[in-house]
């Protein structure tokens, strides 16, 4: 596993554009342009006072350009990390405590995601007023609604419930 969190990275010069955090989560190696979708998936919109730093399209060793998201005071749960895999399959998650990375892991694709994506099929029962949580099974190349069985392969981020 490469070790290029901003404390140790050879790209420090670039990543210093995004401030270090004391306690929280750094989501690194997000595909360029997907940072705001990462925040949307995590339900972070700034209204709850979270301290969030976002770097978009910064140069990276692994990709030509990557995004990086830092959230102060929040450690991501495994469920949240799983869901991130849908739009940021190469992301690394760094849990930071007192300025040190104490945990570092890659995202893994879950079998099912619940309550995160909304079905794009207007004829699906989940799009009405029913008291039902959306549920998608994760395919190799997309996601599939567990209710109406619609398969979505492109622009999965556009399905993120807001």
């Amino acid at each position, binding site marked *: 596993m490469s070790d290029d969190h901003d404390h140790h990275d050879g790209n420090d010069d670039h990543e210093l554009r995004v401030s270090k955090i004391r306690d929280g989560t750094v989501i690194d190696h997000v595909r360029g342009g997907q940072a705001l979708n990462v925040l949307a998936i995590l339900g972070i919109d700034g209204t709850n006072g979270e301290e969030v730093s976002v770097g978009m399209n910064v140069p990276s060793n692994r990709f030509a350009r990557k995004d990086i998201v830092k959230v102060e005071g929040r450690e991501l749960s495994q469920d949240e990390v799983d869901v991130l895999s849908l739009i940021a399959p190469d992301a690394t998650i760094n849990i930071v405590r007192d300025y040190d990375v104490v945990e570092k892991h890659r995202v893994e694709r879950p079998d099912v995601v619940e309550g995160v994506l909304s079905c794009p*099929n207007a*004829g*699906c*029962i*989940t*799009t*009405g*007023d*029913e*008291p*039902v949580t959306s549920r998608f099974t994760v395919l190799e190349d997309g996601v*599939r*609604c*567990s*209710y*109406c*069985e*619609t*398969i979505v392969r492109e622009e999965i981020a556009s399905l993120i419930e807001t």
Partner: protein
Amino acid sequence: MRHDHLITSKQLSRPDIETVLDRAAEIDADPSAVADRHANTLLGLLFFEPSTRTKMSFETAMKRLGGDVVDMGSVESSSVKKGETLADTVRVIEGYTDALVLRHPKQGAATMASEFVDVPLLNAGDGAGHHPTQTMLDLYTIRENAGLDDLTIGIMGDLKYGRTVHSLAHALTNFETQQHFISPESLQLPREVVYDLHQRQDGTGIKEHESLEGVLPSLDVLYVTRIQRERFPDENEYQKVAGEYQIDAETLEAASDDLTVMHPLPRVDEIAPEIDDTDYAAYFDQAHNGVPVRMALLDLLLSDDRGIRGETDE
């Protein structure tokens, strides 16, 4: 595995299907043997869309098993009109009845409803999704007329929106069948259904065509569905397309003498009335088979050892 509800035909294995069809054949041979089998049993009918055959055959089936039905009636006259959710409606009616039959315009409605109830729930059609009880009677009819293995079947018409087609195509992958799908390009099978069919088969058993002509001579069964006017932007376009997917005596001159012609009904002009009295026509028998097949499904789901479960299943 045991199935407490019937939501899609995809959930059923070959032994499950054979258990249903065998039970239907027993009941068909001697309906009087089950005349009191489900006395005092009440079936709730929840039809959020119009239905004639499906609803009446469920009602007949329950009564022929000695039970009775309670009917929500039309949506206009029900509390749904006041904005009640489907989840609430099924939870209320569940308390009145021993099993539920649901038809709903939204896809996935039966899947969701089954998560809110403990009594058996049978999907009688969910939007463009599934219609598994129709599939069981279709399979029963195919088995009686042509057999389910070494079968070459043509499925023609509106394959995009036709839920009977989606359910039947899934179920047939349990058997050794060659399926030919014949439709205008704009009404081909949804990619979700094609995806599932390819998951089940290596693809050699599934072919799509725009014309019946080339495949007709090879068919054991031709399953015709209605192409609906509302799927087309204007009347001319509809007439042009629909005309190519209608069959009459002349069309069938190229067919095998043993061909079985089926249709889930209602038909409009897809099958000329002159076919009705020929040996090809099985569509009225098919409709009649709805009763013994639905009796079998209700019997399996309502018996003490309840659930649909194939004999060789775990």
